[in-house]
């Protein structure tokens, strides 16, 4: 089901972020949101995820039971290991910790209904190894570098089996090699899923592919109104 946002209004005090905004995100595709800082990209993601209530308008097509996200901050439990951080969210159908036919392509094999903890850990390890975190998998997350934590956050979003994934500047702070590895990993696992990524980098945009949405101030000269220009599809 496509994500449809109609008549979205959101203000913080005197600051109007959205004034009757309409957005469409086709199901099962990758969407890249770009735009200058402070134009409302993060707010839009939070509204889509249901973390903020709109002042007006409707958001349709987001299944609250099958969402995942990479937040601007890593939002990891620092006392837990990367494996446990990922396992914590693996409750959805199709995650590395559940049975069913939605296992991410190229990753875990179809699993029996009650997957044993050991098997789940092995599957999570597969994911972590793909982004170069095999060695760090069982270290407390607080001991990891910022880039490593970022990759754990990406793995958590991709391994949980969600149908809709929101990413807010997911590759921020990663060096080029790790960023390219992570983008390849995300691209691999996002086939058939709705992926909405906020980024400032045209290079990341090129590597990820998908539909480009550019958020900008309204051409009518009202700085507080935003519009989304739907650009060409990037392959």
């Amino acid at each position, binding site marked *: 089901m496509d994500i449809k946002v109609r008549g979205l209004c959101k203000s913080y005090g005197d600051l109007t972020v959205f004034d009757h905004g309409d957005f469409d995100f086709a199901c099962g595709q990758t969407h890249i949101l770009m735009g200058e800082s402070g134009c409302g990209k993060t707010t839009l993601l939070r509204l889509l*995820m249901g973390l903020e209530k709109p002042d007006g308008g409707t958001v349709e097509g987001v299944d*609250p039971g*099958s969402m995942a996200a990479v937040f601007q901050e890593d*939002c990891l439990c620092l006392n837990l290991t990367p494996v446990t951080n990922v396992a*914590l969210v693996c*409750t959805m159908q199709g995650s590395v910790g559940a049975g069913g036919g939605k296992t991410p392509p190229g990753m875990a094999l179809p699993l029996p209904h009650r997957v044993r903890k050991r098997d789940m850990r092995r599957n999570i390890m597969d994911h972590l190894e793909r982004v170069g975190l095999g060695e760090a998998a069982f270290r407390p997350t607080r001991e990891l570098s910022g880039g490593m934590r970022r990759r754990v956050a990406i793995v958590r979003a991709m391994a949980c089996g969600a149908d809709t994934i929101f990413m807010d500047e997911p590759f921020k702070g990663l060096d080029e090699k790790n960023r390219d590895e992570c983008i390849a990993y995300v691209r691999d696992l996002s086939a058939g899923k709705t992926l909405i990524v906020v980024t400032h980098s045209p290079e990341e945009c090129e590597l990820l592919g998908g539909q480009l949405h550019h958020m900008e101030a309204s051409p009518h000269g009202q700085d507080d109104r935003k519009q989304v220009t739907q650009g060409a599809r990037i392959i």
Partner: protein
Amino acid sequence: MEEKRTRQPRHGIRLWAVVFWLALWQVAAMCIKQEILLVSPVLAVGRLAQLALTPGFWGSIGFSLLRIASGFLLGLGFGVGLAVCSALWVRVRELLAPFMQTAKSIPVASFIILCLVWISSRNLSVFIAFLMVLPVIYTNTLEGIGNMDKGLQDMARVFGVPAARRVAYIYTSQVMPYIKSGCKISLGICWKAGIAAEVIGIPSGSIGEKLYQSKIFLDMPDLFAWTIVIVTISVLFEKLVLRLMEWGVYAMEHR
């Protein structure tokens, strides 16, 4: 170099400091030379060794330990439970605010005398320890819940993490430092208040009764010996409780 700069100072009790204060105590006792005013540590420990061989010694420790520990555990359980309810429902918080404030402000002696009318002296220390612990644990836990990482809560909501997992892996580890801090503060208070309740209520076979008798007969070696016992039990109990809490959190997170 970096390691040296960032190393935190150790806050625990150091052996040299203990030796220093014991030595000072010994020197002071030797200078005063009057047992009735100040007993030397050597004499106090000697008396303690004698008491340890008497039949009533361990019974008194068991009597007081059982009651004060029960009061502490009740206060801990109710404090955490009520704080969770207060965090969930604002009306509960509003309802409890005057009670907690009053419980924190009323002097222990007033509470003890008030409660003696209602509760038998044998169980008074349970209730007094409970009353001393409850507001401290409640306040700390509520503060811990209020300071929980908003980002982690958002994460749990988006990913649909089940409630049991949220509690075990996300909430507990964030609130636990506040509960532990509350325990450290309230453990000392509950022992002082519990023993005070026993000294006033004089239940037979308690440490408080022994302290009271020491006072009546001006038996200073006994008074110091029993004080050493109280301090020792209090410290050991605190260490045990904090260790058990750490172990509990670890076991929950590494199931």
